[in-house]
């Protein structure tokens, strides 16, 4: 499904990685490992099309993502270091907007269910600015529940999360994989999904 071939990426004059090859198929979980500054985030951002690779190709269902454009974006969801939620809006409004932009039609019930699943019962209509870092991260993660994208690109999804939320994340990833999904992520924390062997590769 997702194939990366001979991918080379640099930031300025600094070469981050070169000739990277891997592929990801349905039901697979791939962890990108590497020390700080080894290019994990740059790799994920290249996958999203934010960064132009110096060389190499990223293919989705056999086609280059540059040519696919919107058709690729409709099938992927990216969660970066930044939560991409608005402090002035409440959790409900934030999720309505992000789901709306992604083209998913969701109603209040589904959004509230997603927020409750993320452990934010009673916080649905509070402005996000009064929530804690971990709670904001949970609001951002709730986007995953409302999306029907098959490829999840998660950059450090576990930052600021407590033990309970990490377990919940493992559960969500497990469900997504069972649902013919694909997940590529970076993390410095251990993440074990029951019944799935995590594939990993390291950037040096």
């Amino acid at each position, binding site marked *: 499904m997702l194939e990366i071939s001979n991918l080379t990426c640099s930031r300025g004059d600094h070469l981050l990685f070169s000739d990277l090859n891997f592929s990801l198929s349905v039901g697979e979980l791939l962890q990108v490992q590497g020390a700080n500054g080894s290019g994990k985030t740059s790799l994920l951002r290249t996958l*999203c*099309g*934010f*960064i*132009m690779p110096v060389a190499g190709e990223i293919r989705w269902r056999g086609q280059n993502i540059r040519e696919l454009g*919107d*058709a690729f*974006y*409709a*099938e*992927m*969801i*990216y969660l*970066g*270091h*930044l*939560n*991409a*939620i*608005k*402090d*002035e*809006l409440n959790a409900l*409004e934030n999720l309505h*907007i*992000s789901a*709306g*932009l*992604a*083209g*998913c039609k969701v109603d209040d019930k589904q959004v509230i269910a997603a927020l409750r699943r993320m452990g934010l019962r009673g916080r649905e209509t509070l402005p996000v600015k009064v929530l804690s870092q971990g709670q904001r991260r949970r609001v951002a993660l709730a986007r995953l529940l409302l999306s*029907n994208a098959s490829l999840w690109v998660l950059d450090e999804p576990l930052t600021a999360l407590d033990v309970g939320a990490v377990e919940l994340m493992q559960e969500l990833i497990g469900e997504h994989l069972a649902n013919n999904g694909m997940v590529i992520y970076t993390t410095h924390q251990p993440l074990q999904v029951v019944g799935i062997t995590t594939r990993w590769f390291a950037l040096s």
Partner: protein
Amino acid sequence: MNKLSLIGLLSLVIRRDFVLAMRRRADVLTTLIFFVIVVSLFPLGVGPETDMLRKMAPGVVWVAALLASMLSLGRMFSADYLDGTLEQMMLVPQSLSVLVLAKILAHWMVSGLPLVIMAPVLGLQFDMSAQALWVLIAALFLGTPILSMIGAVGAALTLGLRGGGALVSLLVLPLCIPVLIFGAGAVEAVVSGTSVGSHLSLLGALLVMALVFTPWLTALALRISVE
């Protein structure tokens, strides 16, 4: 495949930016109050000679509108850039140019439109005739969206730069000179009794041209800024 229609995207983004602006009303009011104060300073500074005031009115109102619109440009993309929503907007499976157009329209509604509505009240301080006021409103109505659109390109180019606020003014102000000339020219024309049509048509033409090119240019600039 999920996909939002272009109209759906336009209305969603405009509604979002409008709600956000209403929750941060102080920002919207600063632009408007800046405009009111700058325009009001001139009659106080120059003195109550109605002839001179009437002559300088269109220029003063237009220059103040130009400066006020510069003041609000920094906000157009920077908040979205800092909290990561801009990245997510790039991943929307729909035209980024249309999304940008929606953001520009929303920006104009909260920063340009109030200036248009306020202008006739300020024009009274300069003893402008009713006819001149109407032309002033029409010219501002056509001209302020152009300022927002040209400004959007500058704001996108300077996104994430330190001291981007001053830089964006240096980039954008020279490009706004045609708008200033035809906008102020329209009001002067009606005062001197010549035809306003040509000035307003040229403003309209500029508006159409900006409408076609600036969302696309802004989208390109945003992609560079996010990289």
